[in-house]
């Protein structure tokens, strides 16, 4: 990580003339940036840094309701919570759930978003407006209300989807519950997640496509390149940085979906079949009062996402981002 400090030097010096260096000679202005930083720093240290530290500490203790109220002394477990966690088949199932669910959401979001971005470059202006307006609507919808309306659409008895399926002759869907079984429930939640996150990919990739010089595409077209060929040989390479960023962004985001799972599967599904790490940690802590174990799950999740973040930082550095 230290190499980050040296890598992007060229960009930042050209953007910033040497004047500030001169200014830092006077005593007051050397303090100035720290004064400006103070409010943000105080909040971040107190409400982000300290809790992060506490999370790790708590994960080493057997911390239950009795310990919270002071009725029982704290017992230091060391890595005991982790041992319990990794020895529990349930944890591995939840981890697998989380990974498969997140991977499915990421792939579907990227495929849909990118396909629509390409489509958006090939339609009339007013059609594009309509498409973007609809996407903006889905994007703006809060997770809570999006979950509510999707759940209503797929309601066993009153939902439009089942009624329509019955009307077209699939009478087996009368009263069919989409959330009773594990993977259909995940698929339904995933559909909602993709619905409200593909617009992000759509607009970002669309902006990226517009930024490709039109002469380049024109030339390829004149040379007789087919549309798939242009996509593969010009668009994909040029969009690579953008695609990497939206992918990582989607991974980070879909890995920690909470609201949709909690609301649509009623807190993790029947018998906990739809638990993901996030909800699992929450349930262990606040439903079972196993705060130490819940914290250990939180630490695992943080480390996994930190791994993704490091990949992200490396890719940023490679693409010459200026820090």
């Amino acid at each position, binding site marked *: 990580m230290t190499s980050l400090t040296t890598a992007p030097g060229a960009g930042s010096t050209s953007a910033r003339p040497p004047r500030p260096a001169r200014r830092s000679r006077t005593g007051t202005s050397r303090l100035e940036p720290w004064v400006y930083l103070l409010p943000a720093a105080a909040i971040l240290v107190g*409400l982000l840094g300290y809790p992060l530290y506490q999370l790790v500490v708590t994960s080493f203790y057997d911390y239950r309701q009795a310990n919270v109220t002071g009725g029982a002394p704290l017992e230091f477990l060391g890595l005991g919570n982790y041992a319990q966690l990794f020895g529990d088949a349930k944890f591995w199932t939840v981890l697998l759930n989380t990974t498969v669910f997140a991977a499915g959401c990421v792939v579907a979001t990227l495929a849909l978003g990118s396909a629509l971005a390409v489509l958006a470059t090939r339609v009339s*202006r007013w059609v594009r407006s309509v498409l973007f307006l609809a996407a*903006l609507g889905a994007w703006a919808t*809060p997770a*809570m209300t999006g979950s509510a309306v999707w759940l209503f659409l797929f309601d066993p008895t009153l939902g439009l989807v089942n009624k*329509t399926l019955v009307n077209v002759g699939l009478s087996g869907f009368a009263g069919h519950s989409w959330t009773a079984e594990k993977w259909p429930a995940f698929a339904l939640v995933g559909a909602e997640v993709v619905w409200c996150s593909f617009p992000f990919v759509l607009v970002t990739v669309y902006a990226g496509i517009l930024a490709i010089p039109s002469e380049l595409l*024109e030339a390829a077209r004149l040379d007789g390149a087919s549309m798939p060929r242009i996509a593969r040989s010009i668009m994909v390479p040029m969009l690579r940085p953008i695609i990497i960023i939206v992918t990582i962004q989607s991974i980070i985001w879909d890995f920690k979906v909470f609201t949709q799972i909690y609301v649509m599967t009623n807190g993790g599904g029947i018998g906990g079949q739809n638990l993901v790490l996030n909800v699992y940690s929450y349930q262990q802590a606040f439903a079972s009062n196993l705060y130490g174990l819940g914290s250990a799950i939180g630490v695992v999740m943080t480390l996994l996402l930190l791994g993704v973040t490091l990949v992200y930082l490396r890719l940023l550095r490679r693409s010459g981002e200026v820090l």
Partner: protein
Amino acid sequence: MSTSITAGMPDAGASVGRGTSPSAVRGTGSPDAEVTTARGGTGAAGARRRRAWKNPGSNAVALLVALVVAFPLYWMVLSALRPQAAIDAGDATLFTTDLTLDSFVRVLTVNDFGRFFLNSLVVALAVVVLSTICAFLASVALTRYRFRSRTTLLVIVLIAQMVPIEALTIPLFFLFRNMGASVPAIGLNQLGSLVLVHLAFSIPFAIWMLRGFVAAVPVELEEAARIDGAKSFRFVRSILFPLVFPGVVAVSVFSFISTWNDFLFAKTFIISAQENQTLPLAILTFFKDDQNDWGAIMAGSVIMTVPVLIFFVLVQRHLVSGLAGAVKG
């Protein structure tokens, strides 16, 4: 400059991102660059339009997709306006003129939804104002001054906004529980706890995003202001702040939306104080084990969704015009 949604939206949208990270902005280059590139070259647009005529199929597909994407929202509004009796009877017709505001009235009077709306609004606005001030000042420090630990701090900011906030629920719960013992206004069950927690989550991203806007203001302006006798803070307040206002607006939207949408912390922190619930929890109470009150759920959802929609649409315009103005100088 064009005000059509097509021209404006991609830039604004790309900058609006998904609320958890700056990459939406950074991914498409610097904010000002986007506007010029997206708007550049009528020749390219003309070529696209000409191609479009050759692809009536593409138009049809795009319209169909738009219809499907927008449908849940339409269904939300329609169901909120459908009489409760019709919903309970399983009426799922795609269109009806038999509409009523009963569900809204029920939600607002019986369930005191107005109060929860106000709670959500107070929390979100407090977060927007405070986080913008903190983040703006911090981004000034991190872009317009050179000091030794500057780059380290930037990396910390970047990592801070990647921290999965959901994982911190447990320590934060105890932190606010303890703080509430000495300062009741920021303890559990109080709106203050929600403001503080979202402040902490909004600031890293806001700093990261505002950084680009602040750095884009030419140093010559600062020189000129200094020659004219403006003190440093005066420059920051009366010249820098107005100039980066479009960026401030964009950042505000992020903070507003992520706070407004929060479900996890509202659920964890507001345990027993019914009167301090926010909208997501209020909607959740309509879900019953025996029979969900779908009319109320949909009406509540409309009430919660509309402000965000308005925000998105408003900002998309504001952001684009503001940026275009800044670029043209």
